[in-house]
């Protein structure tokens, strides 16, 4: 006797268990810390103007650990990491950690639209002529630099970052 539902149901159950095992064991984040000639060296110092007005000073000794994220509105992984960076910036806003975005080869109007769409919870600076990105050796967004309080580069993360990676990097920079 044919029992199509028996076969379909059993197949579905096996599929569900495999899917659950697969999804349930996905890591929340991959380790993407990259080696960089700047690691352990002093980060380039600059004063950059912010998209929404005002300016920000990056590099050099500071009471805060600084996370610098180079991003662009045309970059897919930047969309992916935007909520993670926002989460991280939000969770650490009272803990002497500053997150600054630096626009990489993009128009401010596009960046503002991106911020509106994805609700970035950290300020972003304009890098005219890509001078700061060049000084940092950034070739493609997203790239994230973690700078410790003495102004040295503690970690460089290439590709989309997650809040937990940044937490880890900040602990290393303490």
């Amino acid at each position: 006797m044919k029992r199509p539902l028996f076969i379909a149901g059993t197949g579905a159950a096996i599929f569900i268990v495999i899917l659950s095992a697969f999804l349930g064991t996905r890591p929340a984040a991959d380790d993407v810390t990259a080696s960089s000639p700047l690691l352990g060296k002093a980060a380039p110092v600059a004063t950059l103007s912010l998209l929404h007005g005002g300016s920000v000073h990056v590099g050099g000794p500071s009471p805060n650990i600084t996370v610098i994220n180079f991003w662009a509105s045309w970059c897919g992984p930047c969309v992916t990491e935007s909520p993670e960076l926002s989460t991280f910036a939000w969770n650490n806003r009272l803990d002497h950690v500053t997150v600054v975005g630096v626009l990489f080869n993009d128009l401010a109007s596009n960046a503002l639209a991106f911020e509106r769409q994805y609700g970035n919870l950290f300020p972003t600076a304009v890098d005219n002529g890509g001078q700061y990105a060049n000084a940092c050796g950034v070739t493609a967004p997203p790239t994230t630099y973690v700078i410790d309080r003495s102004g040295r580069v503690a970690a460089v993360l290439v590709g989309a970052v997650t809040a937990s990676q940044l937490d880890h990097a900040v602990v290393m920079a303490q």
Partner: protein
Amino acid sequence: MNATFLGHLGVWLSGMFALVGMVDLAMARRRHQRGHALILSALMLLSVVASVTVMQVALITHNFSLSYVAENNATFTPLIYSITGMWSNLEGSILLWAILLAIGTVVIVFVYRSRAADAVVQWATGILFAVVAFFALLMAGPADPFVRAVTYSPQGAGPNALLQDNPLVAIHPPLLYTGFVGATIPFAFAMAMLITGRVGEAWMVELRRFTVVTWGALSVGIVLGAWWSYQVLGWGGFWGWDPVENSALLPWLTGTAYLHSVIVQDRRGLLRMWNMVLAITTFALTILGTFFTRSGVVQSVHAFSTSTLGPILMGFFALTVGAGALLVAWRGDALRSPVGIESPSSREGLFVANNILFIGFAIVVLLGTVFPILYQAVNGSVVTVGAPYFVHVAAPASIVLLLLMAVAPVAGWRRATPAVLWRRLRPIAWIALLITMTCWVAGIHRVVPLAAYFLAALAAGSAVRSLAGSWRAAHQRGDARWRAFTGPSAGGMVVHLGIVMMAVAIVSATSFVSRQEFSLARGQSAEIAGNVVTFDALRSVSDSLKVQTQLVVHVNGGTIILPAITSFRGRESQDVATPGIDSSLWRDVYVTLDAVGQGTVSGPQVASNLPTGSVAIGVTVEPMIYWMWIGGFVVGLGSLLSLWRRRDS
């Protein structure tokens, strides 16, 4: 006695009562007794209510000894956002889910108290208890809302700025969760029927009145979420095909399929097993959606709360849904209906087509949501699936669904021929054609919007035809005329009208949107799509909660709107662009303040080049988008009307 202790006590007691409830039902089952489900579920609910009360009191009194309150509340947070703080983060959302589920359980136990010794009711109640116990377990362990704060700032961190900008956050999440919880009830009964082997009974039909309400709540919840996003995020859109949005849409799609196929079971006794599969699938998708939202595995623009819940949620998913699939395998073939659908153009035939479309749509959305995880597992690199993928599927599927909405209500059960359908639809089709031609004359010459308007008019006409029929019937019965709009089928037609409004709104707003950025000096105007916006003044406004750089803009010389850059206290480092919207039934003019000129920086950027005193504004003109929100309201109204039983039935 402190908040941490009391909160934990409520969570533990609720879990305990749920477990005792399961044991009690198992013993009652063995002895063929009624058990004590009513009293135990009531105690369970009371325990959850106690926990929720502790949380609410802590939020309202800014009791920062709770870590959750310290992180999501501040001394200056207004009352409404203190209350909504409960669902502004993971742990509190689980608490909201738990209380809604406990309420659902009590309602079911109470409504079926006279059948409390029935095996199906007992099993279903036991499964509901088990799901509550699972949520209590989450709160006792990985998602504990009552963790004591070790250190905290004396004024509190304050809620996420995006969640204190619009009162819609007070109703959107509870409605959404009501919809999710509502999926648990048919799931519990489907499992109970499969376990007891009483698969031939009409429980799914009987439960329809609950599922219609929770489906309505889910629908309105989704629309309100879109409205919130439109009013707060400042990008002029309302739907981004983000995993979080998809996780609400997925159960809605299968739930909508279910509501239709249950009617076929009611009228023709067909599709019984299919309905159980749909009930199980809808529940499965709510859990999977929670996984997408809360595990941190899926990258989402909404994933403000990540956690370690992933493996636990997927374990629960595998257990419940896998068991469901095995039960279907075990019992399913006993229920295969000897009769089939006689004619594809009969109403049941069209409902099956509707089901295939909804399920196909759901599969495509699910694939698009899961694809980045699969790709990353195989290739190690990150990809995102963007809106175009989803739109390619959503647009044709919606067009065909509109056609089905037009045809199905005029089709008869069992036998129907295309000729009969055409005869009934002909007058409506002429009117729809007239409307479409009017649109053509008015200057709309694009094929897709015209086709959509034609089908929308056809679907609306079909719904109005049905409502007119029940209007006449009500008159003949001597009932009050408003009674014509009550009952399942009339309520369903009102829902159809709401969906048509939303379809027209979506088609118009996305097809004929105009968007442009302008830089304006004070007193200057800009024109876009026949609307003139004038920059009147720039001012700084502040209150106890926020500081705003506010732009005063005149739209067409009349309405004043106030787009702003808002900075909330406690989180001054981040600005929110609050849009100013001039809404009307015909079109919305949506203005955002993008930048205020500093006049200092040179470079290619528009914003940086602004002279001091000038502003950069983004203007979006979207025709008819207001009908989206009206349509959502009508959908909710229709699902409530369908509850109202006619006296004669």
